[in-house]
């Protein structure tokens, strides 16, 4: 069985203007030691998906349907106290921007320490501190600086502190949410290298959420493509690169669509629909050249087509193709 199994996950936000399904009927799995890239434009719901896995969706949002099974346990059904224990112990997060993800009024080491002591109540203070220093050294920060405050570190160092923090309780799954955004190229490379080491040296399963197509294809084993709340294609990186099936993925790879927030270089007419008045059926059909009548009416299911491990949600392909 897979380490992580997501089935029909739907996360909605109830706003004044109506209900928005930021993530709709998303299913995929993650194996032990695997690195999965989750890619899509900003606002497509990829970060919401990441937070849903940790059950960190806040009012007015909620996880409306679906299962998130980790090691055979559906965490959606856990009570809040049990869920609290799953967090960080089993699944942890490297946040979007470490600049603002560290508490400015607490020393960095203590922020790692509190996670360790919380989840391992019986650990001795000295051992916990030793572990904090080891973690810092592992990400390339002088362990002696564990009592320094966040503002005393550079942006890249803070990001590495965030990685050390994610490792505090020896989790099995780490979600990296746009953790290289906003860093300079050199620092980005260091952080990516570090994330790769998590997989290689520690054997962790990692979900890399990003809009940086080049980076994701370079380091991930598999790629999942999201568009407007839907998972439109998923498969091994090689297969996605060589044989993209979904028209949206094809557009991405042909550099027809830019994943930056500016979105100015898109040569596919139209833009991401506002999810509140998302068209029924396939959300991509207004921009799709191959759109048919059925695309407007109903949602294409995610199906294995060419190969068992390569799935696409598009009516352009017939069953058993």
């Amino acid at each position, binding site marked *: 069985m897979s380490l992580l199994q997501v089935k029909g996950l739907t996360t909605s936000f109830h706003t004044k203007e109506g209900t928005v399904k930021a993530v709709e009927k998303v299913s995929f799995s993650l194996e032990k030691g695997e690195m999965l890239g989750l890619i899509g434009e900003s606002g497509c719901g990829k970060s919401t998906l990441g937070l849903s896995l940790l059950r*960190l969706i806040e009012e007015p949002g909620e996880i409306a349907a679906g299962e998130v099974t980790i090691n055979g346990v559906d965490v959606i059904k856990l009570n809040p106290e049990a869920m609290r224990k799953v*967090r*960080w112990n089993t699944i*942890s997060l490297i946040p979007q921007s470490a600049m603002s993800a560290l508490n*400015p009024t607490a020393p960095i080491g203590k922020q790692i320490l509190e996670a360790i002591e919380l989840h391992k109540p019986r650990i001795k203070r000295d051992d916990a501190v030793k572990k904090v220093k080891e973690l810092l050294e592992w990400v390339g920060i002088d362990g002696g600086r564990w009592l320094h405050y966040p503002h005393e570190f550079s942006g890249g160092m803070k990001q590495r502190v965030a990685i050390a*923090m994610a490792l505090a309780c020896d989790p099995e799954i780490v979600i990296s949410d746009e953790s290289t955004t906003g860093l300079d190229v050199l620092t980005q490379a260091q952080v990516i290298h570090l994330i790769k080491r998590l997989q290689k040296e520690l054997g962790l399963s990692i979900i890399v959420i990003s809009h940086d197509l080049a980076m994701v294809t370079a380091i991930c084993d598999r790629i999942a493509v999201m568009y407007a709340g839907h998972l439109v294609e998923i498969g091994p990186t090689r297969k996605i690169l060589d044989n993209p099936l979904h028209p949206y993925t094809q557009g991405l790879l042909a550099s027809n669509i830019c994943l930056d927030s500016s979105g100015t270089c898109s040569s596919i007419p139209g833009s991401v629909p506002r999810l509140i008045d998302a068209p029924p059926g396939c959300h991509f059909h207004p921009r799709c050249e191959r759109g048919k009548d059925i695309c407007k009416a109903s949602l294409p299911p995610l199906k294995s087509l060419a190969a068992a491990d390569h799935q696409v949600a598009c009516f352009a392909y017939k069953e058993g193709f």
Partner: protein
Amino acid sequence: MSRFLAQKIAQYMLVIFITITINFFLPRLMPGNPLIFLAGEDVAFLTEAEKASILENYGLDKPLGEQYTIYLKNIVTGDFGYSYQKKMPIADIIKDRLPWTLLLTGSALLLSSLLGVIFGAAAAWRRGTKTDAALLIKFMFFNSMPSFWVGMILVALFGATLRWFPIFGAQKAWMPLSGWPYYADILHHLVLPLTTLVLISIPSTFMIMRYSMLNVLGEDYILMAKAKGLRENAIKYRYAVRNALLPVVTIFMLQLGYMFSGATVIETVFAYPGLGRLMFEAVVGRDYPVLQASFLIITVTVVLGNLLADLLYPLVDPKVRR
């Protein structure tokens, strides 16, 4: 850090300097008899010879620059002049009055900050709920009441009608007490004015704390704290309240001036013998020199309070430490 402090001190010195300058020019710019504006209305009861000697003391015939130097020198040496209404040197009057104002405003500042922070944090934590709305409206209401009116109602209810608390003064004048009864008596007199000042001062701290905490709750590190599986109370106090406190401490400066303004009117209601009541007495008797001296001393006190806040700020904000 030290540069920041030096800048602050320069700013505060300038404030005191401006206050003194206002005090110097106001009576000299007023049309009419300068003697009254300089020495107060009660000089009218003096003989012509006495009036002439007072005028000479002020040296009105000398050039303005020289007058100003004399004025500054007097103030620096603690000579605030003489009150012809109270027939006492003004410095002595102030020495009697200042401790009472410090007692009232100091305790009110501590209490109202504490309560304002607690309620503000509670409201923000439950943002959008009925508790939040109820607290917000309650404190808006408190904020809309004239401070002296709250005092008058408390006096009428708990002083005159129920007789639980004394209706004026800071201690029993005719009964010399010592030891515990002495302090108990002072506390007994302090309850009503203190309650009034706290009631009207909570809202501003509450509003700042609530707003600041709402901002903090939207920060990524709060989400991270939840992701780490921290318990709700740890997130609330160690993360949210801790960080939301920073702007509250910075705003201390405005709060202090506000507190003294409130005390001025409230001391008047309770005939509490502080600087505020002194100002009221000076207004009624048009005792201008006393009015000016009280204003100066209040300003200096506020400035010193601010300086203290600046010195303590590094304790709460690690960014400005070392």
